[in-house]
């Protein structure tokens, strides 16, 4: 390296230093600490023996813990509903938005607002809205069916209720799809129209392939999000009824910060990390077959 290059590298180190310190102290260090803790019994509220070495016993317990299996199945069922539903709704809305019509700015605002405001306040709103007797949803449904589901008190419907609520917040995903749609060259459609292509043909032969990188990005983000769902269930259902919305991240939170089994919860966190790595890894691998980068 020349003197100038050396100087620039040192300067870069200065600009990067907040991230480097933050990465070591708040990310890399905790990742290692979490791995170490996963081999220990680490119960800070047990004053006599807060910490003792367990070897692989926490991991053996993961295999036996019936509640953990339940929470994992809950999460997978939720993800299996939420990921395809959110992708379809967001894509359909983006295609509807991808045209010159009056009031587009207002539509954008309205569709994005539930994404931006998503949090405890909107969860409380939906909890009240799902109320069987007084909530507007079932009051509306009673016009058509005599006994609509008691959404948040029926184990068969509680997950679906959370999926529907979160579909209200697909605006962010929709905007990303919309940007992807607007990047597709118009000439492709014009050429297809000259060849007499149908709407269906244009969608499957132009829109989907051209949109595949965006679709891929949204799928990865939806997957990661679905496996971390926590606050929605905490507020709407407290994990019930009959543990039907006790999702993995929720159970992990309970073990770590309600029962203070921090060693066991660390093992759970590593299992979650592993699951997300495998899922995203598989999606990246499989993506080579269907994602086309222009």
């Amino acid at each position, binding site marked *: 390296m020349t003197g100038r290059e050396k100087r620039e590298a040192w300067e870069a180190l200065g600009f990067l230093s907040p991230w480097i310190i933050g990465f070591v102290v708040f990310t890399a260090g905790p990742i290692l600490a*979490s791995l170490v803790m996963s081999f220990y019994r680490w119960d800070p509220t047990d004053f006599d023996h807060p910490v003792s070495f367990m070897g692989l016993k926490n991991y053996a317990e993961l295999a036996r813990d019936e509640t953990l299996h339940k929470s994992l199945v809950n999460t997978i069922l939720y993800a299996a509903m939420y990921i395809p539903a959110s992708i379809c709704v967001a894509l359909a809305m983006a295609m509807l938005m991808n045209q010159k019509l009056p009031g587009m700015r207002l539509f954008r605002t309205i569709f*994005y607002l539930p994404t931006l405001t998503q949090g405890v306040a909107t969860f409380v709103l939906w909890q009240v809205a799902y109320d069987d007797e007084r909530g507007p949803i079932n009051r509306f449904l009673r016009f058509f069916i005599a006994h609509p589901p008691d959404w948040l008190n029926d184990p068969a419907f509680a997950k679906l209720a959370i999926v529907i609520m979160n579909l209200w917040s697909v605006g962010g995903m929709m905007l990303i799809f919309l940007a992807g749609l607007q990047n597709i060259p118009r000439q492709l459609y014009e050429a297809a129209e000259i060849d007499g292509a149908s709407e269906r043909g244009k969608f499957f032969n132009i829109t989907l392939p051209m949109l595949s990188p965006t679709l891929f990005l949204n799928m990865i983000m939806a997957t990661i999000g679905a496996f971390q769902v926590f606050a929605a269930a905490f507020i709407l259902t407290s994990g019930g009824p009959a543990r039907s919305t006790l999702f993995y991240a929720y159970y992990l939170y309970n073990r770590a910060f309600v029962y203070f089994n921090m060693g066991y919860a660390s093992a759970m966190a590593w299992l979650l990390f592993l699951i997300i790595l495998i899922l995203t890894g598989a999606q990246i691998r499989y993506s080579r077959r269907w994602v086309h980068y222009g």
Partner: protein
Amino acid sequence: MGDAFAPSPSKIARFALLCALATLFVLPFLWMVGTSLTPPGEVIKADRPFFPRTFAWSNYSEALTTMPFHLFLKNTLTVAVLCAIGQTLTAASVAFAFARLKFPGREPLFVLVLSTMMLPPQVTMIPQFILFSIPGWVDSLKPLIIPAFFGGGAFYIFILRQFFLTIPKELEEAARLDGCNTFQVFLHVALPSARPALATVALFSFIFHWNDFLGPQIYTQSMEKKTLAVGLSAFKDMHGTEHHLLMAASVAVLLPVIVIFFFTQRYFTEGVVMSGVKG
């Protein structure tokens, strides 16, 4: 452009569909406001109208005084404003190095930065909790604020790097000829020209921390330390059946976000789009 004057049937159908969808999206908010203004005697009736005939504004004062919402607001503003400042400044500094400086290992390090986006917070939150409990900072706002000043998060670094990449080299060289050192280039060239991107990041960060639940839920225990999100959750646990109070408190928590959004929405929509068009 003539078709704007003679809309085709399919255009009218699409427009009608959009209007219907937009109504569906707004309805929950409208119903929330209606319930928040419904008199307590009426809210228990299953056949009450969508919007009350008389507005019970007192629901708001009742909801917001049964718990120290003014403290929740103060705590939330403290966390959200400081985090927005910390994340924007440090993300800008890091993004500047990745966009404008050459150093060995730049590309792999940037991949490392981006890969932290995939890391579930569950892996780091337990050791972080133990770390912050050593100086006795549990049940304070410090653990919620301090990390924001160290790197600013991969997503924000990515957005700002994309922006810094577009600054023309000539602008930087002109500044250097005028005797600016690298830090002065950052301060006087990069930051001013990235103002819209900085606003986007600051707004995203502010709203994220306004809404954040997991962090405050873990770190704040006493009532005086709670933020609006966890305070509202506690309020819900105590007044779960009083829908008019629940909705009044929720509207009060949402309103600032909605007002901020209406005045700054182009920064948000541009930010989302920037995050979507990777690479």
